[in-house]
């Protein structure tokens, strides 16, 4: 039995749902209350990135940048040089999409504690279409030295992650989503930067999730159990630094690995796990995510179904995997 303290209602029809970005908005305001060095900057998307709560509470510590994402992160870098702890927000497609080099040079190479927040990541952005559906952000951020990369699984965790980042002096990227998603954790569930958590124990396959996909894995595990497949679910909110120990311990036990993310499966979370496995524990790995293609306009639920990012498709792929590939055992 896992000691994560999952929401007991997580499988209910009426499970509580909230957008992950709302947890960030609350967490940032609390961080601002606890530390007057916390400042916030936004590129003309204050309400939708939920920075509005911080702005209303601390107008003197909020900086409106307008639609200028390069300026967004570089002004933040300058503020960090003066001892502030800046959080910047925009949509992930624009930040870090547009300003990657400035993040690299003025935040990572400068080792400044700027927290780049990319909201509206993934295809569930919906009708705005491919230009706004950022799928490459995890890949872009995790290859930068000094950068911490976090994709919270629900709004409760997002609030904890935000507050943890305000107390951390490293550069960081925090990935948020637009649509409301089910809350699977509780206030008492653990969250520590750099830690992965076993949400459900199993023996036949490990389902590794990050961000919005972890909930889908929990649902899939429940369905698989009814067919006699016991899936272990590991939630990996911090993609960098990766919790190698927790992930490898699970995979030594189950011998089958499946990752899931709402983003390109190559280069992102699936890429990170691939790299770990091929160097430490080479074994068959199934990566669920976008298959090197862009999103498109549509209703979020339709899009997740089209791109096979729902629990149904995870069940199908996990079942096929278990029935066709033997469990890896170390020592070949």
């Amino acid at each position, binding site marked *: 039995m896992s000691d994560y303290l999952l929401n007991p209602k997580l499988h209910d029809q009426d499970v509580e749902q909230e957008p992950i970005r709302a947890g960030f908005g609350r967490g940032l305001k609390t961080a601002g209350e606890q530390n007057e060095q916390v400042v916030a900057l936004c590129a003309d998307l204050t309400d939708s990135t939920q920075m509005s709560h911080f702005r209303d509470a601390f107008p003197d510590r909020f900086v409106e940048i307008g639609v200028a994402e390069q300026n967004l992160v570089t002004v933040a*870098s300058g503020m960090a040089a003066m001892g502030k702890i800046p959080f910047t927000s925009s949509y992930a497609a624009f930040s870090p999409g547009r300003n990657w080099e400035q993040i690299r040079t003025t935040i990572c*190479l400068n080792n400044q504690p700027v927290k780049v927040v990319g909201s509206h990541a993934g295809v569930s952005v919906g009708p705005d279409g491919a230009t706004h559906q950022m799928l490459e952000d995890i890949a872009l951020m995790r290859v930068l030295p000094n950068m911490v990369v976090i994709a919270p699984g629900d709004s409760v965790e997002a609030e904890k992650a935000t507050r943890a980042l305000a107390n951390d002096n490293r550069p960081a990227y925090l990935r948020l989503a637009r649509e409301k998603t089910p809350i699977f954790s509780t206030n008492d569930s653990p969250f520590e930067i750099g830690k992965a958590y076993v949400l459900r124990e199993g023996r036949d396959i490990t389902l590794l999730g990050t961000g919005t996909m972890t909930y889908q894995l929990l649902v899939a595990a429940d369905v698989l159990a009814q067919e006699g497949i016991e899936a272990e679910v590991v939630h990996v909110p911090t993609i960098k630094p990766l919790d190698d120990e927790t992930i490898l311990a699970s995979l030594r036990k189950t011998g089958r690995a499946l990752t899931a993310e709402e983003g390109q499966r190559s280069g992102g979370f699936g890429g990170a796990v691939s790299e770990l496995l091929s160097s430490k524990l080479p074994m068959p790995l199934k990566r669920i995510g976008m298959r090197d293609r862009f999103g498109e306009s549509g209703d979020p639920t339709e899009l997740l179904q089209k791109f096979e990012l729902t629990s149904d498709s995870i069940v199908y792929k996990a079942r096929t995997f278990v029935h066709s590939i033997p469990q890896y055992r170390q020592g070949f």
Partner: protein
Amino acid sequence: MGGKLTTKQLNEKAEIIREDIITMLEEAGSGHSAGPLGLADIFAALYFDILNIDPKNPAWPNRDRLLLSNGHCVPVQYAAMAEAGFFEKDELMTLRKLGSRLQGHPEREKLPGLETTSGPLGSGLSQAAGMAYVLEKIDNIKDQWVYVVMGDGELDEGNIWEAAMFAGKNKLSRLIGIIDRNNIQIDGPTETVMPLEDLKGKWESFGWHVQEIDGNNIESVIDATAIARSTTNRPSVIIAHTIPGKGVDFMEYDYTWHGKPPNHEQAKEALAKLRSLNGKITGEHE
């Protein structure tokens, strides 16, 4: 800050800086000549008159900040810092070498006294604006300024204008920009590659106080920064007209000297030019 050295002494500092740039670049075997030489007078003025800093305490919290946004010109900053006592002169010979604190483009984490990392162009003004914003809009600190030196070719970058708009909107009077207007960039003269004029008009329309000066005249530089500091209702920019490669006649005005160091023969000749003020003085032994 202010008034400790005479103009003659400051000019001597500029000459020392120029010589150190030449010897540093020759030893390194790569790097930029024209910009640093042209900036030597501005950097002599900054490090020996204008900036309120303590070379023995680079992290002194009440210091003025200087950012070099056109980071490729860092040899002039390293030379000025060494002459001012931030580190020993012989360390200048480690420029661009493995393990050196004097990286090819300045890195904040490598050398105390540097306020940021730069090289890719366009982001220094924003960072300086962020610092000035904290000083005057959040922490309410008096009597501290943020200076940022920019190249003129660098003004092609959009990030510069984002920062200019931001500083204008917020009336960041603690922010003082100095543009090295030497009219050259890599592919040729600025006005051929990407014309900048009417440059003064552009900055004024963004809400900045603008001065145009002879950037190779140390007194003009000092006077202009004093005027900039006393401008309390908007940010200031000083368009400093400089001669690229100033001090070495075979380098002056030649854009092909932007990105290359002198070889041994050229360095020898350049040092002779510098020490004789471009041939105006001849020594007994020549």
